């Protein structure tokens, strides 16, 4: 029998300081997430300097906590994995320095993980990813549609050409006077309203790219015009119409991809997959096409280190290790990452 592989994973790309110990890319043996959302809400968004300062303050505590919950010792760990891109540079660096230190002190290999890949591999925690599978990654920084052909081979079908879906939820929430984070607030309001505003379909072209900036501008113009005319804006209805239009557009593109590729497995990933309307519509769509659909538990949809431990496992098996020149990157062409890790 093969020896079990345990990876200690670190994630500090944005709001959350998180560490996890994951066995064989699947079993979460320990997970700690320290979130900063309350602090950031006062500022209407993530403040990079505060974020990196708070990561610095909490990272050793998170490490202690993660090891305390773990039944083994740090010496039992086989590798140290860390998110190096994309994200806030100052925040990423805190995680990277911690990972390098642990790697050096305990003489364990270092694995560099792309955050987006983490979101995708979060699906491995509860269900084995069956290849080939179609994957939709929706978060604050991403809107990507990919085909996972095998553990080592992926292809990007389409991405956003302007705002990510998470960004556009946050911006529309800002215009409607809702606090950060905008996504859950839009969703809450939408539940109270009806889809009564006629909003334009974001991108009519029959390709797999997404565009949300036109929809965003339209909602903003609408709010301005109504205010100028002293008309009442029905916030709940507008939130509902906006959410419906944005999500339906995503669904339309996924349907197109399912039809074109004939793939029978679908996974959803990223922070925005916490959105219930999106989950339900995806479920319906997949039922319609007889496609097996999986979405991670909400805990693993938002940023967490367990998903980084999952994504690091295939890299460990392929012996794709990083050295101490590893640096943080604010953005990374995911295509390049896929090529390099094939």
């Amino acid at each position: 029998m093969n020896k079990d592989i345990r990876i200690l994973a670190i994630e500090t790309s944005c709001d959350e300081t998180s560490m996890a110990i994951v066995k064989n890319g699947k079993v979460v043996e320990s997970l700690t997430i320290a979130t900063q959302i309350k602090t950031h809400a006062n500022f209407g968004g993530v403040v990079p300097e505060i974020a990196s300062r708070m990561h610095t303050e909490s990272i050793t505590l998170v490490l202690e906590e993660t090891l305390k919950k773990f039944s083994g010792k740090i010496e039992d760990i086989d590798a140290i994995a860390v998110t190096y891109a994309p994200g806030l540079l100052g925040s990423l660096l805190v995680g990277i320095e911690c990972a390098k230190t642990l790697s050096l002190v305990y003489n364990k290999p270092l694995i560099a993980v792309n955050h987006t890949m983490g979101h995708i591999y979060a699906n491995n925690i509860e269900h084995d990813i069956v290849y080939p599978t179609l994957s939709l990654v929706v978060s604050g920084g991403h809107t990507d549609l990919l085909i996972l052909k095998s553990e080592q081979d992926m292809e990007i079908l389409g991405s956003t050409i302007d705002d990510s879906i998470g960004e556009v939820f946050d911006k529309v929430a800002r215009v409607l006077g809702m606090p950060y984070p905008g996504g859950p607030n839009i969703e809450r309001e939408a539940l109270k309203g009806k889809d009564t505003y006629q909003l334009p379909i974001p991108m009519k072209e029959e390709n797999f790219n997404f565009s949300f900036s036109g929809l965003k501008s339209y909602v903003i113009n609408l709010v301005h015009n109504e205010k100028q005319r002293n008309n009442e804006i029905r916030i709940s209805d507008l939130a509902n119409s906006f959410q419906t239009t944005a999500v339906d557009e995503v669904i339309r593109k996924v349907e197109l991809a399912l039809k074109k590729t004939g793939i029978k497995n679908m996974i959803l990933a990223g922070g925005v997959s916490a959105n219930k309307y999106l989950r339900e519509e995806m479920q319906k769509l997949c039922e319609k096409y007889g496609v097996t659909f999986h979405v991670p538990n909400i805990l693993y949809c938002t940023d967490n280190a367990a998903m980084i431990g999952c994504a690091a496992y295939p890299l460990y098996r392929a012996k794709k290790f990083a050295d101490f020149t590893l640096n943080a990157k604010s953005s990374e062409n995911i295509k390049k990452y896929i090529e390099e890790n094939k």
Partner: protein
Amino acid sequence: MDYKFTSKDEMDTLELAQNIESEKFPNMVICLNGELGTGKTVFAKGFAQALGIEETITSPTFNIVKEYDTGELPLYHMDVYRLEENKDNIGIKDYFTKGGVTIIEWADMIEDELPEERLDINFRFVDENTRILIFKPHGKIYEDVCDSVL
């Protein structure tokens, strides 16, 4: 002196950005201000295309800074909206002297951090498609840019 440009649609804003790109130089700083949806990111897209950057320029709101180094000069594309009151020691200033072009959306938010010499562009909403762009060059080199493009 200020310069005024009326953009009839996105294409106009893209083209204008491309024309400004033809006057680029290392350490150029362009500050974009204006409400959500007035075309700041569209401007950055046009500039980046003309620079020969291969990647799609997407909104930097989530990451604050996105760096692109596949063009004739490096491009640092920022959205500093989320920094608001908390802008000290974030390393923004380092970008101004790294040899590339910096485009800052919502630059007003970090007024004290901005270099003395720079080009300010204010985007004003007129109607659904039309925007008025007001150019404020700070420094001779940016006045020359405006003179040759506008």
